[in-house]
């Protein structure tokens, strides 16, 4: 397909609505980003911020009802996939764009062996014999470093360890050589040591196949290990996007700063763990302008009057904020807060 550097997945102004008993709520509001081949874009945010919904919207796997894709454009390898009929979309899934989910035990059918599931997947998209499909399956299992792949084919999901199951999921996602891989919290359910292995596997596969990877996670450590660019999501919107190192070194959005600040660090002299005050807004009663304003230490009048837009150059960092402050200011605020609490305690 397109040579290194081409855009594999392009999402513009995506809107997804969730219908409740008495009202509808936008859970994805105007999200835009692109993923290039051979590059990993991390989509970061707390639970409930809409990142999984975004992924499902792209795959067009939304549970309808109650969720519906209501606006925006999705281009896969330059092709519009949003307006495709379902049958056409179905043949793209697994073949041009694949998804890996969070909990591998429940994500695999327990009554079929992994070999059977792999073969079925292959033959659903390609007209090959059972034997050819089986060979392909064994190959891909070897590629994701599953020992004794041949015999493993007959194993059932419950007989494999968590890490192995996730490797199988990845194998299934990659066997048909897609352009894009969407990974929704692929390591959250795994042990820490296994997490690193899986992430490295994804990275290796990405380099070999020039995959575009959309990595969804709430874990910033994961991000720093594999992603080239990071987009931070809050309440259904992207609030900041930048190359990984730049984001970690110089976060601009107060939310991003808060997230980074709340990472525990061994080198800290802090006596407590920082957490962002307040809670994610209730979709039934959203703040009138900037959605982060109620929790933001730098909020000014404009933040409560006008909804900030995402600004920045195409290849540069993007930011959605009226009053960004340098990272060091958070530390100052923290310190004065600490002093105040110490004072009232006495």
């Amino acid at each position, binding site marked *: 397909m397109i040579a290194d550097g081409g855009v594999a997945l392009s999402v513009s102004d995506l809107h997804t609505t969730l219908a409740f008993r008495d009202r509808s709520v936008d859970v994805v509001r105007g999200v835009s980003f692109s993923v290039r081949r051979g590059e990993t874009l991390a989509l970061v945010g707390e639970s409930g911020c809409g990142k999984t919904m975004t992924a499902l919207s792209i795959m067009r796997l939304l549970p309808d009802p109650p969720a519906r894709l209501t606006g925006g454009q999705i281009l896969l390898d330059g092709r519009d996939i949003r307006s495709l009929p379902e049958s056409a979309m179905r043949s793209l899934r697994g073949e041009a764009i694949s*998804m890996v989910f969070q909990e591998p035990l*429940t994500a695999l059918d327990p*009554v079929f062996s992994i070999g059977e599931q792999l073969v079925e997947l292959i033959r*659903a998209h390609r007209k090959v014999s059972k034997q050819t499909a089986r060979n392909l399956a064994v190959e891909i299992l070897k590629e994701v470093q599953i020992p004794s792949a041949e015999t493993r084919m007959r194993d059932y999901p419950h007989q494999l360890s968590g890490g192995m199951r996730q490797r199988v999921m990845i194998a299934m996602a990659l066997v048909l050589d897609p352009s894009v891989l969407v990974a929704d919290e692929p390591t959250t359910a795994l042990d820490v040591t296994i997490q690193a292995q899986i992430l490295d596997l994804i990275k290796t596969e990405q380099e070999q196949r020039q995959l575009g990877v959309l990595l969804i996670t709430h874990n910033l450590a994961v991000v720093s290990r594999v992603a080239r660019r990071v987009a931070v999501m809050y309440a259904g919107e992207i609030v900041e996007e930048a190359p990984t190192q730049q984001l970690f070194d110089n976060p601009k959005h107060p939310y991003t700063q808060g997230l980074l600040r709340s990472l525990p660090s061994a080198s800290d002299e802090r006596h407590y763990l920082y957490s962002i005050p307040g809670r994610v807004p209730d979709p039934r009663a959203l703040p009138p302008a900037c959605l982060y304003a109620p929790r933001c230490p730098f909020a000014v009048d404009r933040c409560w009057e006008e909804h900030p837009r995402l600004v920045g150059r195409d290849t540069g960092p993007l930011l959605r904020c009226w009053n960004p402050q340098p990272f060091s200011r958070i530390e100052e605020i923290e310190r004065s807060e600490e002093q105040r609490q110490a004072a009232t305690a006495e």
Partner: protein
Amino acid sequence: MLRYLGRRSAYMALIVLLSSVAIFYSLRFAPGDPTGVTLNPLTAREAREAYREHLGLNRPVYEQYLIYVGRLVHGDLGTSLVNGSSNLELLQFYGRNSLVLGLTALALSYLVAIPLGILAAVKRNKWPDQLAMGGAILGMGIPNFWLALILVYFFSLNLNLLPAAGCCSPNQLILPAIVLAAEGTAVTTRMVRSSMLEQLRQDYVRTLRAQGLPEWRVVGRHVLRNALIPVISLSGLRLGWLIGYALIVETIFRWPGAGFLLVDSVIRRDYPVAQFFSLVLVFFVVMANWLADISYGLANPVVRRA
């Protein structure tokens, strides 16, 4: 798997044993005895006493039980006090009829319930679902004897299409089989539907769709196979209920099956027949549960490979 089977089998054997004791004792517990039925009421006291002695009815109950077990082991299954036929002969005739009726009802119920349940689940809350569920609730609510009465009223008395009683032509099988199958069909339909819905909510369904598998494969192969597992494990219970209801249905339609015979022999205090056929039915219930357990073990790979 083997350990699982071994445990179930030991259980079953224990149940059969305990049941035989319970049946034996309970029948002898009641007032009256077979001599009241089998002998002419004008028989002299001494003759009646002699007959009781002959039947061993004056011995302590546990002794009677042991004698009974002894005879069973040697192949002597007992003889009817009413008409003298051996239990074996009775089993061959009545047992066969029950099997015919029972298997027909069973086949009927699953052949209807499974497709209907699937349809209801797939078209959830639309009219096929509402209709199927409405029918199921009715099927559960209408007692089988009343259903029998109504069907007989319409098909036999009014329309004269089907016979109201007797055995053993296919025509005579239709109504009893329908009545017997009704309740089980209703319950199984609901079970299949809820099991399907439960499976459709599972994560693996989303994975399969994300892999681009056609919907008919996702539902027809994966969801269905998972959904049928609890249905299989409950089939033993269903069969047990079928056997229970058969007692009533056979009596209503005068279908000469084991259930009919059991009810009849209990009324007449024909001990040997009542005992034997109770035991046979208990054995069947136990067998059915045992087979259901095995099938469940085979169908569920988590148990199979344990």
